[in-house]
């Protein structure tokens, strides 16, 4: 496919998204329209985006166009290249499944009081914004698309605004998005003042002095890091993502955060260009911090969607760890490991989009059929929603980075990149990178613990509440969407070489060099730099697993006794065990909570129950609140309280102000 065609396909995708937004306006009259028109349009939009992305990645070129909008001297420029293509693909994959998932989900809302116009309309705008961010080729359009994305998603977060918590989440989200946007804008300002004008082309050409480059990097990192939910700027994320309807959460966690990653890559690797390794160190440090914090807090949560949101913080941390490695290697003149880390980052971004989308959709279907988000109320869902159970399990295994699923591949690549640290000259970097690696390993294990807890509590064991006991499997659309994503997770896990062959176009375009040997031994083998150094053959691992299983299972059947007898669980000879005796989610996390006690702000309280007993309640707070946010809020409050003294109410005082101002100014100008 020619790259121009890809560009027009992308344009089509944007048009479809906007179309779905416009169509939803009719929902005021006919609520069905969202289900039957808007959602399918979204699906088509996703397909178009996928096609465009694949086209761009395969052709590897770049195409530009200008739209008759924008400022008189700065029309909107759009451009598609491999990087844009990759993220179009990512957006498209999730969006397509949403198109499948949405209708069945929205049906539940048609009776509700919340306006479907807002839901459908802003979903469309949200997508259009994200697509345009990826396509934008000048700062002005980029900022517009970026803020439209933020604004639309803000309205979606505030969609179910009866709960005060959602309102607060929306406010916090919009505030931080606004601040982040401003800082990105300033970053562009720096770039623009060195290059002439806001077109990315001229910014690429611009030559920045190291100091200004670092300043621009700082601003950009702040802005995109805030959007990507990096610690300590993550506070909005666990509030906002759960507040939205589940498939919106999937879009926000799975896709929007990646758009932030895109922005970071575009500005730092592409526009600023000549990177400096201290930036890499900063990114590495922040990334590790986010990964660890995210994993720990995810493990502590009992609200399923909140837990998934925190795990997004952790995954973005991993992505940024890889990006930091890439920066370090590139500036130290090791293009190959740099490209390796870069590819690892992209791969993980893609994986996270898939399995986080899958998990949020799973959470959504649980919510849909049990109206329950609290893990402590769930249990035994595997037998009631077998398909969701299966797909969710695949999601858990993928996110826990277990072979042969996709999460493992990107983690493997990241480790491989980190292990190239011996090539670095400075001992400092050589010794700091391994520490990041250790953090990564720790994170991985914690994530495994987290999702064992999620799956074990939600899908295994016995139901902990009545409505969960009555759960029914969701409609086919919901299951199909999850199945699609689950299949993608498996495929991306089994055939990494092909995927990397596709992704490789991005580093070749952005960094000027990819992974030449990645596919050198055919699709069977994944080889980061040399066959001797390291190699991984996902297909063979899977094959061997299956083969051994095929050997063992019948073997056991033959050797051992045929029959399997059903009986009660072992109750130590006391009364039969009930659902309430099961291990709870909080209890499951307790050992880790004790080990990392100093990270959490734990409030344990005894609240009396209706039946006279006491309930042991535990709240786990995020320290970043009292460290960063509340002080800022207090500062503003105090300043405001001082300032309002100006409005004392006495007209003579007002006159006095004017007189004094006049005299002072007169003195200034004539002194």
């Amino acid at each position, binding site marked *: 496919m020619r790259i121009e065609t890809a560009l027009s396909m992308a344009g089509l995708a944007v048009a479809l998204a906007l179309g779905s937004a416009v169509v939803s306006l009719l929902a005021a009259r006919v609520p069905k329209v969202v289900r039957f028109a808007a959602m399918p349009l979204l699906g088509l939009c996703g397909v178009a985006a996928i096609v465009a992305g694949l086209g761009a990645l395969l052709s590897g070129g770049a195409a530009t166009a200008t739209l008759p909008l924008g400022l008189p001297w700065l029309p909107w420029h759009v451009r598609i290249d491999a990087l844009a293509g990759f993220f179009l693909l990512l957006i498209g994959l999730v969006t397509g499944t949403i198109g499948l998932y949405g209708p069945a989900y929205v049906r539940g809302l048609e009776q509700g009081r919340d306006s479907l116009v807002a839901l459908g309309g802003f979903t469309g705008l949200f997508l259009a914004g994200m697509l345009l961010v990826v396509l934008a080729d000048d700062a002005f359009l980029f900022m517009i698309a970026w803020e439209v994305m933020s604004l639309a998603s803000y309205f979606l977060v505030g969609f179910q605004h009866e709960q005060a918590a959602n309102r607060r989440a929306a406010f916090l989200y919009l505030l931080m998005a606004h601040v982040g946007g401003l800082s990105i804008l300033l970053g562009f300002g720096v770039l623009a003042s060195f290059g002439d004008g806001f077109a990315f082309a001229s910014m690429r050409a611009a030559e920045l002095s190291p100091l200004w480059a670092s300043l621009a990097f700082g601003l950009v990192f702040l802005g995109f890091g805030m959007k990507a939910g990096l610690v300590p700027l993550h506070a909005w994320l666990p509030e906002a993502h759960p507040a939205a309807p589940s498939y919106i959460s999937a879009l926000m966690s799975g896709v929007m955060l990646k758009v932030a990653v895109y922005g970071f890559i575009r500005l730092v690797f592409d526009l600023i260009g000549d990177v400096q390794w201290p930036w890499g160190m900063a990114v590495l440090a922040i990334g590790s911090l986010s990964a660890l914090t995210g994993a720990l807090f995810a493990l502590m949560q009992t609200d399923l969607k909140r837990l998934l949101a925190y795990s997004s913080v952790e995954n973005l941390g991993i992505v940024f760890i890889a990006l930091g490695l890439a920066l370090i290697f590139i500036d130290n003149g090791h293009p190959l490991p740099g490209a390796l880390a870069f590819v690892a980052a992209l791969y993980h971004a893609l994986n996270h989009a898939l399995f986080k989308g899958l998990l949020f959709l799973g959470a959504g279907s649980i919510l849909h059929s049990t109206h329950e988000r609290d893990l402590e109320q769930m249990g*035994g869902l*595997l037998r009631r929603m077998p398909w969701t159970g299966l797909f969710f*399990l695949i999601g858990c295994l993928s996110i826990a*980075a*277990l*072979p042969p699923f996709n999460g*493992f591949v990107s983690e*493997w690549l990241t*480790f491989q990149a980190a*292990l190239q*640290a*011996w090539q670095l000259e400075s*001992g400092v970097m050589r*010794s700091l990178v*391994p520490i990041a*690696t*250790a953090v990564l390993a*720790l994170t*991985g*294990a*914690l994530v*495994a*613990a987290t999702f*064992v807890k999620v799956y*074990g509590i939600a*899908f*295994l*064991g016995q139901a902990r509440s009545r409505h969960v006991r009555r759960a029914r499997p969701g409609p086919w659309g919901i299951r199909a969407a999850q199945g699609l994503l689950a299949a993608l997770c498996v495929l991306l896990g089994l055939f990494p070489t092909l995927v990397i062959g596709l992704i490789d176009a991005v580093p070749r375009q952005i960094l000027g060099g990819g992974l030449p040997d990645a596919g050198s031994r055919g699709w069977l083998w994944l080889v980061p730099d040399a*066959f*001797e*150094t*390291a*190699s*991984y*053959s996902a297909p*063979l*691992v899977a094959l*061997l*697993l299956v083969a051994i*299983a095929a050997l*063992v299972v019948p073997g*056991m059947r033959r050797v*051992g*006794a045929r*029959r*399997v*007898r*059903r*009986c009660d*669980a*072992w109750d130590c000879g006391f009364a039969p*065990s009930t659902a309430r005796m*099961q*291990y709870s989610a909080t*209890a*499951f*996390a307790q050992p*880790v909570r*004790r*080990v990392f006690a100093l990270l959490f702000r734990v409030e344990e309280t005894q609240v009396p129950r209706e039946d006279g007993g006491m309930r042991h309640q535990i709240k786990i707070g995020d320290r970043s609140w009292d460290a960063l946010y509340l002080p800022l809020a207090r500062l503003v409050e105090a300043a405001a309280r001082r300032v309002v003294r100006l409005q004392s109410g006495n007209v003579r005082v007002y006159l006095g102000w004017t007189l004094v101002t006049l005299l002072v100014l007169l003195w200034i100008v004539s002194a």
Partner: protein
Amino acid sequence: MADILSPSAWLLALVQALLFPALAPLLAGWVRKVRARLQNRRGASVFQPYRELRKLLLKEARVAHTASPLFRAAPYVVFVATWLAAATVPLLTIDLPTAVVADIIVLAGLLALARVFLALAGMDVGTAFGGMGASREMMISALAEPAMLMAVFTLAMTAHSTNLGSVIAHHLGDAFVLRPSYLFAFAGLTLVALAETGRIPVDNPTTHLELTMVHEAMVLEYSGRHLALMEWAAQIKLLLYGVLVANIFFPWGVASDPAPASLAMGLAAVVLKLAVLGGALAAAETVLAKMRLFRVPAFLNLALLLALLGLLSHVILEVGA
């Protein structure tokens, strides 16, 4: 190294892979025997574990009403994953196709896969024990896994490879060097091995006292062939770690060519090393006492610290900087 994928090499790999389940109970039995001796008991024969496995296999399996399909699938997954992980460790020779298929990181991944299913199986029936065991197991592994990876990364960085075969080859190749990093890594990996295989002082494979048990708590609901598979997998894991420690840090004797003589030599060497290691383990379990659950993190942090020191001392002291 195209030859590494040659049919003969695959055949060798198969033999090696079969050796693991075959030898695993023996090692377990040996450790028990030595411990019994050290405690002035006669103890059962070293082949007792084989008998136990057979007994369990012949018994009928009982599954709780509340159990889900996952409960019955888990033992197979655990067993298969552990076995495959073991198959990637050079037992006799370094020219190992499985080591190319799955490097050291994949090995860790496979073990994690087995662990996750073990824990899930523990939570499936919905008794308090299972959840407790799972939660403890995940906590321990969360601390053990980074330590293990750090330890092996030390070697990997020295050898510039994560392929176990070439790591060992690298060490066999160059002259004997005293590397401080190895000392640390060795210590670290040993501690991890103790934790991961559920030995004293972290866990006690022979206890059924619910306050202390971890592994046993998870498999409490299992019986018959399911239990047999779980136990067997645990023994393979023990052997796996044994071989890992033995062949990485004391690579002498591992065959670098597929000649029968050197293979036999390799087998003898590894058996000898394992016997020594097993003895040491037994001795340790005799003199040490099981520690409280919340002392374990300190223990594992020590392991992590050692492993990290190993890595640091490698990148700082040993790379020509």
